[in-house]
């Protein structure tokens, strides 16, 4: 069984930008270990030289003319912003 420590879970939670409590880290450690152990059945298959599928359709480089078009309306875009000031999005300080 794959072993995932609480510390690893906390590291992954940080990468995923999720605040996590000690209890949650404990719970997720067990659940992630169970799911990754289940996923390790894929190792039964020899995939040497098998090309990974990232996408099922044979699509490459969909291009369009490089022309400017009107974007979304600024006032409309601000409608869903919870905190704003003078037509700008407000965030907490980004420097310590």
């Amino acid at each position, binding site marked *: 069984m794959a072993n995932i420590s609480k510390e690893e879970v906390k590291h992954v939670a940080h990468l995923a930008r999720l605040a*996590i409590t000690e209890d949650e880290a404990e719970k*997720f450690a067990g659940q992630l270990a169970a799911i990754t152990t289940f996923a390790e059945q*894929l190792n039964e298959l020899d*995939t040497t030289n098998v090309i990974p599928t990232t996408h099922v359709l044979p699509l490459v480089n969909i291009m369009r003319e490089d022309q400017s078009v009107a974007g979304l309306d600024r006032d409309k875009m601000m409608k*869903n912003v919870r905190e704003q000031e003078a037509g700008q999005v407000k965030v907490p300080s*980004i420097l310590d």
Partner: protein
Amino acid sequence: MTLFKYSASELQEMIHNKEVTIEELTAESYKRIESLDGDVKAFLALNKEQAIAQAKEMDKVPASKRGPLFGLPIGVKDNIVTEGLETTCSSKILEGFNPIYDATVVRKLREAGMITIGKLNMDEFAMGSSTENSAYKTTSNPWDLDRVPGGSSGGSAAAVAAGEVPFSLGSDTGGSIRQPASFCGVVGMKPTYGRVSRFGLVAFASSLDQIGPITRNVRDNALLLEAISGVDESDSTSANVDVPSFVESLTGDVKGLRIGVPREYLGEGVSEAVKQSVLDALKVLESLGATWEEVSLPHSKYGLATYYLISSSEASSNLARFDGIRYGFRAENVENLMELYKETRAQGFGDEVKRRIMLGTYSLSAGSYDAYYKKAQQVRTLIKQDFDQIFEQYDVIIGPTTPTPAFKVGENIDDPLTMYANDILTIPVNLAGVPGISIPCGFSEGMPLGLQIIGKHFDEATIYRVAHAYEQATSFHKQTPQLWEGANS
């Protein structure tokens, strides 16, 4: 008796003969929702005022300007954005979010003259198989209110099964249209990847997601898919292929059709009643002139693990956009930007969504990437090849949609792996990118069962032809849940 027992063409005839107006039809939908949705709990936001006003205007449009879906009511899954109508993906993190544009499919519905009745409940961000992961409510199965409707498009399937709307849109990443359609006894199609634009569908797993129609019969389903299909410059993964008239393919003729039946789809874990219903359906198709043989999808047992690694990895990337800054929920009392991100996401996402973001982040992280994510993409190639090989010799693949009928609310919620196993027969179809439909094919424990018909890339026409021929020879799709008649409308 409700008007929504009738098909689209019957409703059009009634409108044409002035037996009913579009306004009355729209009002009927809201009446049914008012009397039934307290139990079924399929709908989130309703669009009542606008819909009625739109219907009044549409009653004035001359008959020559009306298409086959003109004036008919539809419900839309809550992960498809609708301008000015709250869209939450059943998540707290999007509570109060009012989109500022319409998804391409919503624009196409409007162009077809359909009337959006409201938004439909789902598992949060389409992650789940029962709607129990919704942050707002758990939808009930109209056939038995103690059972789940399936998921993630549970609200979309339940609303159609309850006769609240005759049409709905769902989305299917690993079975999220077909599994609830099966559980609720309705028709649900996952089109070929690329058939329908995903612009305005809130992304879960971008290489797998596809929008599709849920209806009470095959013909209506074909009509609706025709209306929403086609290449879209706003979605570079939408395919530039012709959209044939799916309705014209409904000839009733399946003579000489070659059906492959994967032995893995009638194996361990699939209930006897489900197996029997599929074998009975094959007999019906044989009697209509089709032939079937047992085939093998040898890698299908690896589908579940492959799917959870790929879909969770893609989700961890797609859901990074929910940061509390520009829309949706924002955590309060935080000191700095990092804390704002972390607290917003911790308070805004539910457990299943967090679990998958964590799994995806883990499988994409340094040291795990080759062992998990890349390995899963390689196995995906093998699974796709299984389908390619069968389709060299067969026109369609047939099996059950789900291993069992709908389970009870609460039965699987604490065990992610058991819950995931519900999708074992639908997931390989998304991995291969081929189209698949679920249609009613029997009952077990009083609950509907679904027959899954899988076709070649961009060959929805053959799937519809087979589904329609089978439907015309049987009567399962005509049955309705008991609560259907009880509604006061």
